[in-house]
């Protein structure tokens, strides 16, 4: 139950976001993420978008590894 689902925001309306996860679309609550916009990527848990995803995992791990001496 703790597995997060990363998805792209298609539409936001009245605190609800329509998300697309590899083609599967569903509505989730956007109640704890202000300023969500279509095109944003989010992490979804139990029907709620809990965090914006701000980068790709490849960029992220490149930065981290380059700073690890």
């Amino acid at each position, binding site marked *: *139950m*703790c597995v997060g689902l990363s998805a792209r925001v298609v539409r936001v309306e009245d605190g609800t976001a329509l998300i697309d996860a590899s083609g599967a679309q569903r509505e989730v609550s956007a*109640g704890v993420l202000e300023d969500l916009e279509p095109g944003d990527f989010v992490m979804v*848990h*139990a029907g709620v978008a809990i*965090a914006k995803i701000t980068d790709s*995992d490849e960029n992220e791990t490149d930065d*981290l*590894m380059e700073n690890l001496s």
Partner: protein
Amino acid sequence: MNENMKKARDIITSYQGKPLRIMEVCGTHTHEIFRLGLRKLLPEQVDLISGPGCPVCVTAIGFIDEACWLALEKKCIICTFGDLIRVPGTKMSLAGARAKGAEVKPVYSPLDSLAIAEENPDRQVVFLAVGFETTTPSACITVKKAKQKGLTNFSILTANKTMPNAYQALVGSADAFLYPGHVNAITGNAVCQKLCNEQGVSGVVAGFTAGELLTALATTIRLLEKGEPFFRNCYPRVVKDEGNLSAQKLMQEVMQPCDSEWRGLGVIHDSGMKLRSEFADFDARIKHDMPNIVGKPNPACRCGEVLQGKCKPSDCKVFGKGCTPLHPIGACMVSDEGACSAYYQYTEHE
């Protein structure tokens, strides 16, 4: 494989220092590390131990008994994350209650249980609210919506838990923690940073992809080698230092801390969340006048020790024999995030 991933892999495979114990606090990390084959990269000196971060696994047996009581005595419709259905209670699981006529519905989100309550106005509907900071906001949103809609046939049975005091209880059980990325996405990093600064507890926040887990493990091993306590956020694309402030505010508005029983760890002070009195109408224990129900664990099951990294699932006498995913004795064998089910799926056994 890109250069940086090669570097991460080399740091892990070439480690030759003193023995290290790294705790995967989160059950999803345990499963992903097995599934991606990363355990095979670890040299002998590096031991990955499981922690208490599977919400289904740490849910006390008495909670299952309470849910069965609501289902059978009060004839409530029980809505729950599917994982909980087969977790054994003292006498039966919710699957057992279902066989006796109880109505138990798996849902993906607590919000789905509101629709079930609206479709069944003549029945009482109870959602089983388990989970850590990651999942608790969804229960809070649901209760607020139920209140707005004026629903009188909906309530939640809380067993929500919070990590900070559990970390305290685990200090000293590992050389470093792999912190659960999605918990930190909500709470932020202050608690982990403070543990490092004040108590010398080391750890990194880890994501869930192969690259992220390799990076987190390499960072942990390299920094442990250096010998100074450390905290690093290895999942910055999702976890911000301050966490999700709206979610934190929402949880404070709807719930308040309470003592909570963790399977294996016992009762930990202020490590749970319950509904505030303003939302008492949605508290299943109050609404349905629940008696005090105390669960009795199966003496054969060593889940408690597994959840504290004190023993491996394979050290349990009934692992893979009396206890299998089809016939689980303990919660750690049921949940997809449980350490026993991970070991059963990915290691060799009789």
